[in-house]
């Protein structure tokens, strides 16, 4: 077993009981701007079909086929390849927020992602992430800090988790540890640990400590043995693996409170497809991954909220390549035991030309910060939300009441 013994003991001391566990938030970023109009289709709006002659998803058919949308409330319907999430919606554990996003007018992926992850609209002076500041704003959780409190399943720490609070970036749990089992490498771990412990380099000293603390905690939990429960089947992709390992860390009681994963491939400028095709394949992977996570976590979902986001939506009209260009509002999802789901939230702005943002995009009726703030406050118990969303006038009356307090 790697790592110093005292750290392992610390980990055990911090271990919560599985039932009265801490609240957990899992954030999933759909990078590249997902077409919310294809994910949760406004099939009741005739302008939708007018704008998308070749890529619209047909209306629901009486007998559910792979062709038409899956009705949700008589106006909206899931894309057929989101089918895996329909049962979760019907159970009331999945809420959808249509026409949601950032009021920022930028159509740059990278600026928009940065802004959203910083919890701002357009302010470039804010450099730390909203999740990081949320963790700082949960005082009682600071006391039971563990290395795994905030984990991103990425190579580089995403902006959401950058800041003063410790956070880990782990692309794959299996790779997390020094491979010191060879003849030559025996004892090398303590050498590395010693060097980083003594380093005057503030940045590398801190990062080194995080690394070795985490290795110790992970080994105590023995991550090599894992099989999903309740028949959950994760997609074999990197996204599927990320979600599975998040479930694994939660069940190993490593003290995880905020997890982050991402999935790309949403920037469908060309041949986005309709009920089948490029975008449909992304929905399959995305929804099956989420459904697997939901089923795998089982009873633990009582303490878990999963929040999906994307930097903006896509143009209402299809472009010249049967694709869509960068737009404005899109659709967010909130899933979990504490969620008041089974409903599509948000005022529908309509798709007639005069109703569109800048004459081309779905208008915004829910500021994404009203969703984030509600979850940070009611689910994670964050205080002083003004520090998490600087420059934003918070008003709990605007909350959709997506989660039970």
């Amino acid at each position: 077993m790697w790592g110093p013994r005292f750290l392992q003991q610390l980990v055990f001391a911090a271990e919560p009981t599985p039932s009265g566990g801490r609240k957990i938030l899992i954030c999933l970023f759909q990078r590249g701007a997902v077409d919310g109009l294809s994910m949760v289709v406004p099939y009741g709006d005739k302008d939708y079909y007018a704008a998308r002659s070749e890529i619209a998803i047909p209306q629901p058919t009486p007998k559910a086929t792979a062709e038409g949308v899956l009705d949700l409330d008589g106006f909206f319907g899931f894309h057929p390849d989101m089918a895996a999430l329909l049962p979760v919606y019907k159970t009331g554990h999945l809420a959808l927020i249509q026409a949601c996003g950032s009021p920022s007018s930028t159509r740059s992926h990278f600026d928009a992602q940065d802004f959203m992850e910083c919890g701002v609209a357009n302010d470039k002076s804010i450099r730390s992430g909203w999740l990081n500041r949320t963790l700082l704003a949960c005082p009682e959780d600071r006391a039971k800090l563990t290395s795994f409190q905030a984990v991103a399943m990425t190579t580089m720490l995403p902006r959401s988790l950058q800041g003063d609070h410790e956070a880990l970036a782990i692309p794959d749990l299996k790779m997390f540890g020094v491979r010191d089992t060879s003849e030559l490498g025996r004892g090398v771990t303590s050498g590395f640990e010693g060097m980083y412990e003594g380093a005057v380099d503030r940045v590398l000293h801190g990062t080194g400590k995080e690394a070795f603390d985490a290795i110790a905690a992970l080994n105590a939990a023995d991550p090599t043995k894992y099989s999903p429960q309740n028949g959950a089947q994760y997609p074999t992709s990197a996204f599927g693996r990320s979600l599975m390992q998040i479930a694994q860390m939660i069940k190993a009681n490593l003290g995880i409170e905020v997890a982050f994963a991402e999935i790309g491939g949403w920037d469908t400028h060309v041949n986005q497809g309709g009920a089948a095709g490029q975008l449909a394949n992304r929905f399959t992977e995305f929804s099956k991954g989420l459904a697997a996570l939901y089923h795998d976590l089982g009873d633990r979902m009582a303490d878990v909220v999963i929040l999906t986001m994307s930097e903006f939506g896509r143009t209402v009209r299809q472009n010249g390549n049967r694709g869509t260009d960068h737009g404005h509002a899109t659709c967010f999802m909130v899933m979990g035991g504490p969620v008041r789901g089974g409903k599509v939230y948000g005022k529908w702005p309509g798709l007639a030309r005069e109703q569109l943002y800048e004459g081309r995009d779905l208008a915004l009726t829910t500021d994404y910060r009203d969703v984030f703030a509600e979850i940070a406050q009611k689910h994670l118990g964050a205080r002083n939300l003004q520090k998490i969303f600087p420059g934003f006038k918070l008003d709990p009356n605007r909350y959709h009441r997506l989660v039970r307090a």
Partner: protein
Amino acid sequence: MLWACVALALTAVPLQAADNQLTPDQKIVHVLDRLGFGPRPGDVERVKKMRLENYLQQQLHPERIDDSVVEKKLAAFNALSMSASNLMESFHEDQRMAAERKKAQAESEKQKDVKSGSELADANRRASNVQKLMDDKPGEHLSRIAVAQLQDAKIIRAVESNRQLYEVLADFWSNHFNVDVRKGPCQVLKVVDEREVIRPNVFGKFRDLLEASAKSPAMLFYLDNAQNSAPREPGPGEERLRSRVREQVPGTAPDPVNAGKPRVVGGINENYAREIMELHTLGVDGGYTQKDVQEVARCFTGWGINLRTGGFEFHPRRHDDGAKTVLGHILPPGGGAKDVEWVLDILARHPSTAKFIATKLCQRLVADDPPAALVERVAGVFRATDGDLRKVVEAIIYSPEFYFPATYRAKIKSPFEYAVSAVRAAGGMMTPEGSAGPPLTARLAVETGATFGRGMDRIAGARRKTLNLSIIELGQALFAYQAPTGYPEDSRKWVNAGALISRMNFSLALAEGKFSDVSLPTDDLLRGVDIDKPDLVLNRLDEVLLQGRMSDATRATLEKQTFGPYDSATSTVNVPQLVALMLGSPEFQRH
């Protein structure tokens, strides 16, 4: 006159107090670190002997440096010298075979249900024949290995080329004009982009580099401009093709509204227009609007690719020939292909571009937050020389800021810089056709697969792997960054616990000789040192690997590590472990 000199000297002194300056040796190390991929054993002495000034001048004129040894090593990488049309031919052939294999497999699946003996055998035979064809002659399927050849060549050049500054800048520009090889034919077209767009223009004019990139088929495909076209009525052939697609592609929606009306095909695709301004020239705050994006997109309509020859093509029929207004400049109607020439002139000469390029180059070469005064001066040189990139780089590396003590070892190495500098520090050489391990083509296929995210589990457990595979594992698959930003120039983004552990594992694997394409002369490192004398070994390794910069804390740890088991005359120092520890140390993460 004499008085003037004294006065000048006096005013100069307080600004550059001796203890606030890099020593001559530190300056050399700094140059080797930042304007190259780190020192090899003996490099510091070599530069000292030829004088730093001469070294810099040489590096600024790579054509004066003989590099034939490296180029000879690259001869085995046949895809790199192939014409675009041959590469595309190979790409299409591979696509066709992959489709065939998929079909054959699907058939064999279907047959399994029916269980008709002879038909099943037939389908199986067909499937395995296609598979066999793919396996037997991987060398003939260049598109499967072109990606790995491109990556390996970049690594070999970084490790061994004497044109170190040139390789650093080639990496910079390739990353600036990022193309992800995982998008369709980019897996072969990036070969041409690297060879004919990036590398020839590293020390040229920015305007030329920008135009070369705008015409690069790899870029045109990657950022969708090949699909950017003015809306128009289709020809009869297109109409037929379209209705066929409609019948055959499931899920294509009916067309309730436009039925009966004359159909319109083509249309604006804004993707490239936006990124050329946001990421290649002006920068996101460079003063353009959504309207400018739309207008530039109109200028770029009809700029496309011939998918057979892999060449650039302008299609006048797809071009929007109306008047346009770009950043306040009015472009008259009927400009045709000239529209883009005008746009490129406007963008290349815009002051925001000078500032944006200066900032990014200073970030790469000087500091994550480069001094504003330096950026301003460098941008001035960019403007004054009409974007002469040699002059721009010169302005940076001759600036006092470049040698500020605060910039010394201030940046964290990227995974690529880290891996390459470790091999160089240990005096390693690349052996692409290495005697051990699987044949070259087979391992290149594995590397390409890994770049596409396939087989990572197997690779993680492999006993021996290539340097390229390890760089993929470290999180910086070369030429394979999905977003058009490229990898971040801000080096702080690379610091995190997971990455640090991967680097420790890398240094361990390197010191244990686990890379199949790296030969490491560990004995040479310690030539003339008594291996039974731990303190001497430690001193030598500090000198060679860390240029004598080992901290007290690191030394204390390593002494403990080394002297611990050293208890009798029969035991010797575990040299590979010491090498691993030093290359994985905090000191070695920075440059």
